[in-house]
Each structure stands twice: as C-alpha cells, then as structure tokens.
C-alpha cells in the first residue's frame, strides 16, 4: 500500500481501511480500492492451475496484471488515470445506470434503441442487463422497460453513463496513458469482455474501447466450460461476480475470495 501510495501520491491504505461509502461512491476512488483489494487477494492465493482470466470492466486491468501483461505498477497508473478520466467525463455530463431484471438482452436493446440517452451497458447474466445513459434517459428507459415486462429496475449508485458513447471524452484522455504503458505477452489467455475473444497484440485499443462499449460478461462466462474451466474464482470485494457465475453457469464450482478467511476454503 505504501508503494502504491508513493506511486500515486495519495493515501491508499486510508482508502482501503477507513474510507466510508460516500468516499468510495466517487468512481475514481472506488476503482482504485477495488483494484488494490483484488491484487492483494491474488498475491495471497496459493498456486492455482489457471486456464484463463477475465475481468468485468475495471477488473479486466486486474486480469491483465494476473496474466503478466501489465506490471502491478503499470496497472495501478492506468486504473488511476481510467478512474480520473471517467470521473471527469461524468462530472461534465452526469449519467446514471440501472440493473434491469427479467428481460432478455434483445428486448432491452430494442427498447433502448427507441429512446434517447439510454443504452444497454452490461449483459451480466440471463435476464440481467444493466442500462446506462443520461439521468433522464435512464429514468425514461426504466419506465419503458417496466412496461415491456421487466420484473425489477434497480438504480445503481454510480454517477456516470459508463460503457456508453457518452464516455468518449474519457477515452481520449485514457489513450495517452495507454500509449505510454508497456505490454508483455500474456502468460495465460485474457478474455476481453468487449469482443468475447482473447486479448491479442492491441491491448491498449481494447482497454480504450471498453469505456464506451457494453460489457459482454454473460457471453464471456458462457465460453468457460468449453475451455475446460472447472472452477471460477472471483478476486476482490463484493461477491457480485460469483453470483453472476451461479446464475449463468448453474452447476459450475465458484468461490469468491474477498478476505483472508476465504482462503481456507480454496
């Protein structure tokens, strides 16, 4: 943590140990805290036979570090810049996101296509899509989706239209940092949630695209059994991804490692 703090000139230990929900709601802080927690967990794991790694949104940077493509330090600088760029874009054009439960990707896409300022942003699990856009756009789309049969529409505590065209300004800013970073060949394949294919030579290009493209997480998960994956291990806080795995791949062994006591279960 001290190293991370020196690199970024801010108090990373405070962020993990003392920061409250309000402080963590700011996307830049939340992204840093999530990245650092996930890497701490990764470093404490016993050796695993890793077939493939993948990450949801920000988590793709963690996955690239785990695969050796980025050093932890390079990853940290990119996470900090990514968070700051997204925050800046969100401050300039406030947005909102909401989880839509009970409708297929296709129906959500169709309803959003007929509206202004709302896009499908994450396909998370069967009948679980997150929409994103302007504050008014997401509110209107939420009502339309309820009308189209959604069982629940749940506002998410974020202030930006992440994974939509409204994040274009963040891309230009992040691209400067992405061009400056060094990328090594992966030790294990890293799945991109933009393309649902393994990362190739243009890691920087996909990390930029990621900011304005939907997260195709359900599709990423659906490729895992065919690659011989027998167990999915989630790194870092929350346990939300483990839940998505259970919903998408019934019967797949899955565990979430968020804290040292979880290691005993591995």
């Amino acid at each position, binding site marked *: 943590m001290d190293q991370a703090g020196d690199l970024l000139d801010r108090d990373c230990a405070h962020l993990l140990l003392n920061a409250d929900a309000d402080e963590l709601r700011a996307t830049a802080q939340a992204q840093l805290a999530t990245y650092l927690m996930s890497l701490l967990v990764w470093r404490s794991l016993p050796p695993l036979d890793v077939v493939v790694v993948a990450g949801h949104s920000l988590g793709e940077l963690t996955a690239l570090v785990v695969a050796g493509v980025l050093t932890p330090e390079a990853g940290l600088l990119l996470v900090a810049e990514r968070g700051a760029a997204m925050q800046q874009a969100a401050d300039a054009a406030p947005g909102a996101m909401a*989880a839509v*439960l*009970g409708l297929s990707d296709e129906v959500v896409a169709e309803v959003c296509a007929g509206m202004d300022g709302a896009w499908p942003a994450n396909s998370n699990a069967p009948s679980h899509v997150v929409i994103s856009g302007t504050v008014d756009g997401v509110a209107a789309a939420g009502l339309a989706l309820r009308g189209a049969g959604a069982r629940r529409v*749940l506002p998410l505590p974020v202030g930006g239209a992440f994974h939509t065209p409204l994040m274009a300004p963040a891309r230009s800013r992040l691209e400067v940092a992405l061009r400056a970073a060094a990328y090594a060949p992966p030790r294990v394949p890293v799945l991109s949630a933009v393309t649902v294919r393994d990362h190739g030579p243009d890691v920087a290009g996909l990390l930029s695209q990621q900011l304005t493209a939907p997260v195709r997480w359900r599709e990423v998960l659906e490729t895992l059994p065919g690659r011989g994956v027998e167990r999915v291990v989630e790194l870092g806080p*929350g*346990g*939300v991804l483990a*839940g998505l795995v259970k*919903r998408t791949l019934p019967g797949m062994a899955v565990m979430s490692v968020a804290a040292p006591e979880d290691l005993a279960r591995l």
Partner: protein
Amino acid sequence: MERAEVLQVLRDKAVEMLEVEADDVQEDKSFVEDLKVDSLSLVEFTMELEDTLGIELPEEELVDVKTIGAFLDVIVGKTAAASNADG
C-alpha cells in the same frame, strides 16, 4: 402456509443464494445490516421467493421492511391471500 414453513423456505433459499449461514437467518436480524447482503442480491432473492411461493412481493410493500421477521410477515400475508384466492 404456516409461518414456520415459510421461514424454512426463506432460510433454505438464503443459504443457497446469499452465502449466509442458516443459523444467522433469524427474525430479529436484517439481511442488509446484519448479514451484509447487497441490494442486488436481495432483489434477486426476493424474485426467487416470488417464483417458489407463487406470490408477488412489490417493492413498494417492502420499503419499510427492516428485519427478516417483518419480511416474513409480508410473505405470510401474501401466501394466505393466494391460498384463499385458490380455494
């Protein structure tokens, strides 16, 4: 359904979906405050209970529900109404 029966269903589903211990699912506890369940998981859990029990649990009727016991009150009311409608 009897209250105890409904509690059993709720407890089984909670253990299956929410990574909580059966013993922690007590009427005076709160899923959010005590069992640290996030809001999205809680909504998915509620939907699963709707499917299992064949009832509807509208969000607006759950706004003031803070404890598992209060949640149980709402569910028991709904299952009673559902079986009356059936009979």
